[in-house]
Every structure is written in structure tokens, then in C-alpha cells.
């Protein structure tokens, strides 16, 4: 792994630390996400995985440490700007625009490159050219029958699917998914996992998950966090046999 050339690493954290009023939520985390892989960040409640995620996506500012994206330091970059660089995140609580239709949800993500997003004098009809592409994306996540429904009317699992379609609309190089399978029924988990696998074919995915078992066959690399520090890292076969992981994590009965 150390022999990997540097441009193989698309996203990297160096000595990432976040303190909240004296409480150290994340401590000296070094993380390397390789291009084209599915990388999972797991850990029990309070392990700091969401904090790491929010730091990487710039929704939180690190106390110390550095974040590099394609070798560029993005530690001080604004969250809206990393999206333009190809780093797009999802949210733990499903992140749709509830009172926009499914089509409009995806179209909002597609319309930015038109450069007319500040044009308040233009007709909405100028956006209709985006509908074909939007419907393709909606089709890809099997939401076609709901294209004109309000996002708020969708059941939970389909909201997550819509969220993925919206994220894909930006054609990101790196997709950061915050617990994409959390709160889903068994019938949805399989489909969504397959969807993640499918969209990860030509991009990098970093996902935060609670359960080791659900990411087992999905991820190339798993990083296990505990109390803000990295406990173990590697493919599932390696991580799942780690004695510390067994004790600290499997012991909680989630595996």
C-alpha cells in the first residue's frame, strides 16, 4: 500500500484533529482514500466518524491537520466550492428538497453549469432542456414512476435513492455518502447497496456506516474508528479478524 504512487490517492487527511471545547472528537486521523475504490469509515456510536466526515466535506473546520484532494490543500476551502471541484456529499438524514418534485430535485443539481442560476429574469422554461438528462438519472435509480411527485411523498428508501441521483447529477469524482443504508428496511438495503456498487464503477466512494456487516462486501477498504482514533484499516478479511476490532466493535453485537 505504501508503494502506491501519490496520484493514486485522491483524498487524504493528515493529522486531522477536531476539538469541541476541550473534548477531542477526532484525534490525529490519517486517512488515504485511493482513487476508484469504495472506502468505508465505520465505528460504534461516538467514534467520531460523522465528525471526520463533516471535516472532510468542510462542514466543520478542523482544529489541526490538513485535508488534501488530488494533492491540493483544501483545508480552508468553502463547502460549496469543493462541490465544484468534484467532491460531493450526501447527508445522514435524507437530504432531498421535500417540496420540489423528484424531477426538480435532480434538475437543481444539473442547472448550475448553465451559469444562469442568478438569472431571476429568465423563464423556468430555459431549464427544460435538462429534463432528458434528469430523467435518465431518475431512471438509473428506478424512480421514473415518481418523477413528478413531490420528494416529500416518497418513502424513506426512495428518498435515499433520489439523493443519490441528485449527487450523481454533478458527476462527482468522489462521492461521500453519510450512512447511506441507515434506517432502511432489508428490502431496500440490498437494492441501495447494489446501486452504490454500480455508481462506484467509475468514481471513488467514501461512505460512513454504522454496521460492519453491511459494508463487508461493498467496500475495498474499511477504516475502523474508535474514540476519534483509527483502530484498524484494511480489507474486510483483515479488519474483521483484528482482535481490537472484535473486542471494541464486534462486541457491541452489530456485526
Amino acid at each position, binding site marked *: 500500500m505504501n508503494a502506491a504512487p501519490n496520484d493514486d490517492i485522491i483524498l487524504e487527511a493528515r493529522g486531522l484533529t477536531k476539538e469541541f471545547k476541550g473534548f477531542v472528537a477526532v484525534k490525529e486521523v490519517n486517512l488515504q482514500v485511493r482513487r476508484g475504490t469504495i472506502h468505508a469509515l465505520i465505528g460504534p456510536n461516538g467514534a467520531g466518524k460523522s465528525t471526520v466526515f463533516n471535516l472532510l466535506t468542510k462542514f466543520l473546520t478542523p482544529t489541526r491537520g490538513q485535508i488534501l484532494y488530488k494533492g491540493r490543500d483544501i483545508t480552508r476551502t468553502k463547502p460549496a466550492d469543493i462541490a465544484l471541484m468534484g467532491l*460531493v456529499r450526501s447527508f445522514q438524514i435524507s437530504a432531498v428538497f421535500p417540496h420540489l418534485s423528484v424531477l426538480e430535485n435532480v434538475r*437543481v443539481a444539473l442547472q448550475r453549469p448553465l451559469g444562469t*442560476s442568478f438569472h431571476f429574469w429568465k423563464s423556468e422554461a430555459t431549464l427544460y432542456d435538462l429534463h432528458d438528462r434528469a430523467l435518465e438519472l431518475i431512471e438509473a435509480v428506478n424512480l421514473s414512476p415518481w418523477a413528478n411527485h413531490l420528494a416529500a411523498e416518497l418513502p424513506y428508501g426512495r428518498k435515499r435513492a433520489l439523493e443519490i441521483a441528485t449527487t450523481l447529477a454533478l458527476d462527482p469524482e468522489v462521492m461521500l455518502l453519510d450512512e447511506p443504508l441507515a434506517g432502511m428496511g432489508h428490502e431496500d438495503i440490498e437494492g441501495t447497496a447494489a446501486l452504490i456498487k454500480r455508481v462506484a464503477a467509475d468514481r471513488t466512494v467514501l461512505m460512513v456506516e454504522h454496521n460492519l456487516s453491511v459494508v463487508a462486501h461493498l467496500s475495498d477498504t474499511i477504516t475502523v474508528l474508535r474514540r476519534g482514533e483509527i483502530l484498524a484499516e484494511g480489507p474486510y478479511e483483515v479488519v474483521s479478524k483484528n482482535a481490537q476490532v472484535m473486542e471494541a466493535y464486534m462486541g457491541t453485537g452489530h456485526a
Partner: protein
Amino acid sequence: MTAHTSAKTPAGGSGRSSAALTVRGSATGTALAAAGFLLVAGLAPYVLYPVFLMKVLCFALFACAFNLLIGYAGLLSFGHAAFFGGAAYIAAHTVKEWGWSPELGLLAATVVAAGLGLVFGLLAIRRQGIYFAMITLALSQMVFFLALQLPFTHGEDGIQAVPRGLLFGLFDLSQPLTMYYTVLAIFVGGFAIIWRTVHSPFGQVLKAIRENEPRAVSLGYRTERYKLLAFVLSASLAGLAGGTKAIVFQLASLTDVTWQMSGEVVLMTLLGGMGTLFGPVVGAALVVTLESYLAATSLPVPVVIGCIFVVCVLLFRRGIIGELLARMPKRGG
């Protein structure tokens, strides 16, 4: 309904036309409502007192401008009186003291309101909820203080006896009907700008921000800039409304810059239905009507309006138009 059912057809080529159908369906409704409004508003001065109607129209535009911000950007400003009342002083002063024509006076009023909106917006836009409301309130109180202290506003007296003048050097605004149709045209123009803004690429982003700001950020939108533009647009149109009111009543006074005025526009918008295009018009008409007609009775106006507001919030929280729309057969999208 047709749009709703057609939406259920599988996507592909048909999805595009179904989306267009939805828009066309709502456009027909809007066109009908607009035609109805124009007909009623066009004939109204032959039945009702024109000055009363003009007051309704000024407040309706003010409420619509306010609604653009709260209903479509999700920002509660508690300082909109600064733009409304501040612009009234500008229109009154430029027309009366500098002898500007009414259209130039109104333009100046709108531009100054836009400038004020930019300053307020830059200072307040990064804050949310109650903090945003309080910063706008504090700033508008400063404008009130200026209106009280600056020599050109004439303190408690205000700027009185503002000549209505000739619009474009042609139309004598001292004629009540000419004045009325001018105000109606201004209202329709302002309303059209709001309608277009709401149904524009910008309006789409604005709604996305209202619905879920962090998600809009993660999609690459610098949300503060969109909110700032919405704020400036809203302030400009509130200023246009205030300037028009000053020309109509030939008066700019402290009443229009008080915090009570900021509260009144919130009330109008909520009563009519925030986030609906026609709601604020209905709300403004209702409040102005009540104030005008109750003033002649011995009933205490604030108490009556307060009671109506309480009933409204308890029984139909979406406001009058909002509730009507919610009960109508649902349309897709």
C-alpha cells in the same frame, strides 16, 4: 389532474412532456387568476373609493415583496419598514424639493431601497432565524432614528403636500383615476417581476435553499449570495411600494418606518398565505379594509386584527390562499 396522471407514465421521452404539462396546467390557473384580478381591479375604482384601493395596492405590493423573501427564500425579515418608509421619504423629497418627475422619484426610491437592502443583507444574511430577524429589526430601527433626526425628513411632521405631478410629462396624476391606473400598473409590474423571479432558474435555487440549505451547499451553491440577491430584490420592490404610497398620499411620514409597519407586513403575508403568489395580496386587502372600515366604528382596530390573526394561526395556518390551494385537487410537482 391531467398532469398528475401523466406523471405516472414511465419516463423516457414522455416525461419531458408531462413536466411541461404540469407547468402549463398551473400556468392556466395563474392566467385565469390574473385575468380575473385585472378585471376586478380595472372596474373597482367605479365602485370603491380610489384612494382606498390605491392604499390596498401599495400594501399588496409591499406584502408581495416581503413574501418573496419569507415564502421563497425562507428568510423572516423584521425590518422591511426601513425599505418601505425609507423609500417613501426619498420619493417625497426628490419630487417635492428637487422637482423631479414622479417616475424619476420612484426610480430613486427603488434604487435607494435596493442600496439599503444590500447593506442590511450583507450584515444579516449569514445569520438564521431569530438572529436574522433581530439584526434586520435593529438596522431598521437605525433607519427610523435617522428618519426622526435628519433635517430633510422634517421629524414628526414628515414631508407633506408632495405634488403628484405629471407622469412622463403626460399624465396628470392629480386626477384620481389616472393616479389609480398608474398605481395599478406599478403593482402589476412589481408583481410580474416577483412572478418571474419565483419561476426562474434563480427561483429554483432559492426554493432549494429554503427546502434544505446544507444540501444546496453540498451541490455547490454559495447560498449566501442567492439569499442576498433575494433580499435586495425584496427590498427594492418594498421601496417601490413605499415610494408609490408617498406619491398617492402626497406624504412621507414616520408611520411607515416604524417597527409596527414591519410587523404589519408579516401579518398581511401570514393571513393571506406565505409562499403563495396571491396570498399576500389578499392579506393586504383584508388588513387595509379592516383598518379603514373599523376606524369609523368604536371597535379597537388592533384588538380585532389581533383576534383574526390568532384565529387564522390556530385554524388555518397556511393562510387564506394557502388553505384554499391545499384543499383544491392536488397537482403533481
